[in-house]
């Protein structure tokens, strides 16, 4: 373990990106509710929308809908569209009914949808009004998860932006604290918390918190690491509160995780040798776990349809640590600022695309005949039927994939479809 890890600031990446506009086969931001509500345990997400929104959440949440979940839809009806004052009264009634039914709820998000945005139902004012009414028992916030404004994981970004003003103000003379931003499975949070403790980086807080009462303080003493690449607006909101972003690769794979931890270690002035000693066992475990998956993945070509904005980071991981060949890496939105480090680590010849015209992209995919295609569930079975192996992308958002000890699992998610294809005789 002699190699040093250094953070390099890449020059502004000037490689061409294919920007497309047309039919987009993506989820809207409402889908973020499905994992956000699992994380913030006393929060409830009330979508103000149409039957379509309710149907979407139901389809995305699958069987979770039945476990008395902490999300629901206030379905707008004909009479709500007739006049705005009426819609506000109706909303108040729905919220009263809901809070009476769920007295355990401390934080209520009114989530905007396409219909509520188009009729310009002012949910931020509704949130203020309802907050006053139900204070101090319940705090009411709002954000938009509409398809016209947000794509899939951007719903989490919008939600966290709404949560930032709720954070207590950290004093300027407080000792520096680390904020890890982005919803992570509890087990991954715990793994990172242990690593930071061993490194001597801290105190460490996670955002969003597991409970609305424990929102960490934010101020000029706050240094933050993004755990997810889709949190551009949250990063901006945190910066406006004086917090400092620690740019890094995202913590996927051995390399990404090391780089990410190093960014925090450097900010805390942790000596290089101590850093290497602390991360050595994790890196070793990750490498071993990846070695097992490499036999299935090395040399194979992969094509990413846009979905979550995690695509460039995952592509970097798959190409550098597993030897996969990148055909096209699609992302719904390319935030060059947050992805500066990632872009520097992507092979120069990779085809990057932002946005989508799904039929044209399918043409490119068919022409390339990649060994593995990462896409949504609307495309996966049809592509399998055409003979292409696919990995459905939503799983990457729900599964524990960050950090050293999930690196093998992350690789396995991509290896499994290829292995499966190799064993089936029917």
């Amino acid at each position, binding site marked *: 373990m002699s190699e040093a890890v250094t953070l390099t600031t890449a020059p502004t990446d000037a490689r061409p990106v294919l920007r497309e506009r047309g039919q*987009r086969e993506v989820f*809207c931001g409402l889908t973020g509710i499905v994992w956000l509500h699992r994380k913030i345990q006393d929060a409830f997400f009330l979508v103000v929308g149409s039957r379509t929104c309710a149907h979407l959440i139901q389809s995305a949440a699958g069987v979770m809908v039945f476990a008395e979940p902490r999300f629901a839809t206030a379905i707008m009806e004909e009479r709500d569209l007739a006049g705005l004052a009426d819609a506000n009264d109706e909303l108040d009634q729905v919220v009263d*009914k809901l809070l009476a039914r769920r007295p355990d709820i401390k934080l209520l998000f009114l989530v905007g949808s396409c219909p509520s945005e188009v009729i310009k139902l002012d949910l931020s004012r509704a949130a203020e009004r309802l907050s006053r009414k139900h204070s101090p028992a319940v705090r009411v916030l709002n954000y938009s998860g509409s398809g016209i404004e947000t794509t899939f994981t951007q719903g989490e970004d919008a939600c966290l932006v709404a949560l930032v003003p709720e954070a207590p103000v950290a004093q300027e003379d407080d000792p520096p604290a680390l904020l890890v931003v982005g919803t992570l499975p509890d087990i991954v949070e715990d793994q990172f918390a242990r690593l930071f403790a061993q490194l001597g980086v801290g105190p460490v807080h996670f955002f969003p918190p597991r409970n609305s009462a424990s929102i960490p303080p934010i101020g000029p003493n706050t240094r933050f690491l993004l755990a997810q690449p889709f949190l551009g607006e949250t990063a901006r909101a945190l910066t406006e509160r004086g917090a400092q972003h620690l740019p890094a690769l995202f913590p996927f794979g051995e390399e990404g995780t090391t780089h990410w931890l190093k960014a925090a270690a450097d900010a805390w002035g942790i000596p290089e040798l101590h850093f290497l000693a602390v991360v050595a066992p994790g890196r070793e475990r990750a490498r071993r776990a990846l070695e097992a998956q490499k036999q299935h993945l090395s040399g194979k070509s992969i094509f990413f349809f846009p979905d979550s904005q995690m695509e460039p980071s995952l592509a970097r991981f798959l190409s550098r640590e597993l030897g996969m060949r990148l055909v096209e890496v699609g992302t719904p939105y390319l935030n060059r600022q947050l992805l500066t480090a990632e872009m520097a680590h992507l092979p120069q010849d990779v085809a990057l695309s932002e946005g989508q015209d799904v039929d044209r992209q399918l043409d490119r995919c068919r022409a390339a005949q990649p060994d593995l295609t990462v896409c949504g569930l609307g495309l996966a079975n049809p592509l399998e039927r055409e003979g292409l192996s696919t990995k459905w992308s939503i799983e990457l958002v729900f599964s524990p994939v960050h950090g050293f000890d999930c690196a093998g699992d992350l690789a396995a998610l991509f290896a499994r479809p290829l292995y499966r294809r190799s064993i089936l005789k029917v």
Partner: protein
Amino acid sequence: MQLTVWTYEGPPHVGAMRIATAMKNVHFVLHAPQGDTYADLLFTMIERRGQRPPVTYTTFQARDLGSDTAEIFKTATLDAYERFQPDLMLVGASCTAELIQDDPGGLARALALPVPTVTLELPSYQKKENWGAAETFYQIVRSLATQAPIEKAEGHGPTCNILGPTALGFRHRDDVIEITRLLADLGIGVNVVAPHGATAEDIARLPQADFNIVLYPEIADTAARWLERQYGQKAVRLVPMGFQATCDFVREVAALAGVDPEPVLARHGSRMPWWARSVDSNYLTGKRVFVFGDATHAIAAARVAKEELGFEVVGLGCYNREFAREVRAAAAQLGLEALITDDYLLVEETIAALQPELVLGTQMERHIAKRLGVPCAVISAPVHVQDFPARYAPVMGFEGANVLFDTWVHPLVMGLEEHLLTMFRDDFEFHDAAGPSHLGGHTKAAPTPVSPATEDVAPLALPVAETVLEGAGETIKVLHWSPEATKELSKIPFFVRGKAKRNTERYAAERGLETISIEALYDAKSHFSR
């Protein structure tokens, strides 16, 4: 505004998608925001289709709002036409596009595509999925079925259309096979099956049939009524689900076609009547069953439950208001008041109050029943992936009756086993916690064997003294059970114990008893058995 967690039906444009996906070489351009493509995965995942649904979404975004969206719609429509070369185009708007008031029909007309283009008006804030499917099918039939019937050649056999099967339909695939086979046995030809597998050209040929079979009234009734008005085609609306309903269907169809039904009825081949009569089915007698689903399947299931399996139907309802009248009539015949609601919480409340021994319902009732610990079988959409099976599994026709028997009886504790559980309930092998063996009840380690003679009994599944009754808004702390009464309650077979407990507590509460004794238990029993 309506507070909703679960919705039995999607929005009307999903109904339109079900028609477009069922048909061949049809393309649907849906004016819709980014994100509405989620509906694709209902078809590719739940129904496991190997092709994308033939739907192009305009996927406009916030920055497009203004004058741009109409242009996006036109571009998407032209691109879709050029790429897919369909024989029929459908255009419509989803809930958000309905609000921005572009006019898909007018815009599509302006493009003057060389194929028929049907404009769908889908009022998303009033109507739902089934209505959307029915309306779409009706509009397609109205637009394309314009050829008047031609005089048939001498000696030409009778023919009919099978109307209603769609994509995402509960067992539609196999019902069509079963009913087509049955019609072939009767010597009746099938002119067109629609919308499932039909092309635009097939729709044009609909008037050539002698009569129509409305297999799924939720989807096909509107179109069938129009065909009847326009071309005098009679319609068979009897849904052949269950043994008797299938026999009735055969007779009605045969009468319309002018053929003799008796040879087919004589060699029907269904095992269901004998299975129901065999002594092992005796224990099914009077089992209390709650039925909920779409109107068609719920009504048919209630008849099968009562007349063919000997259950007692204690509740009947549907979620689609369009057919509420039919369900109310069927319920009245059973001496019940129909439950017409799309609020699953009300369904759950009703099931909890009725304490049935079997629930027949949708995917939602499956989960309600699981929570309440009641056996359940699925009879209607909405359903999840496991109810689009690989095997042949119709619910209509004679084979369908066989399928119903197996599906509904399986979740119940089997006859002999139920008897053993009752007789030897204190026995170490047949105590309550052991559960039915065919449902994997032996997951827990067997408890230490106890002699039936000792005073020890298996621990109760329900902590009796701590139970709290939740009424409408108020919470009533329930009285204490005496240890003797608690023990006595444990001797009551588990499948009726919940009801006995509830009745006793109600009885005790009404009389202001502080502690429930053995006497109170038996007083309540005699009180409620009047």
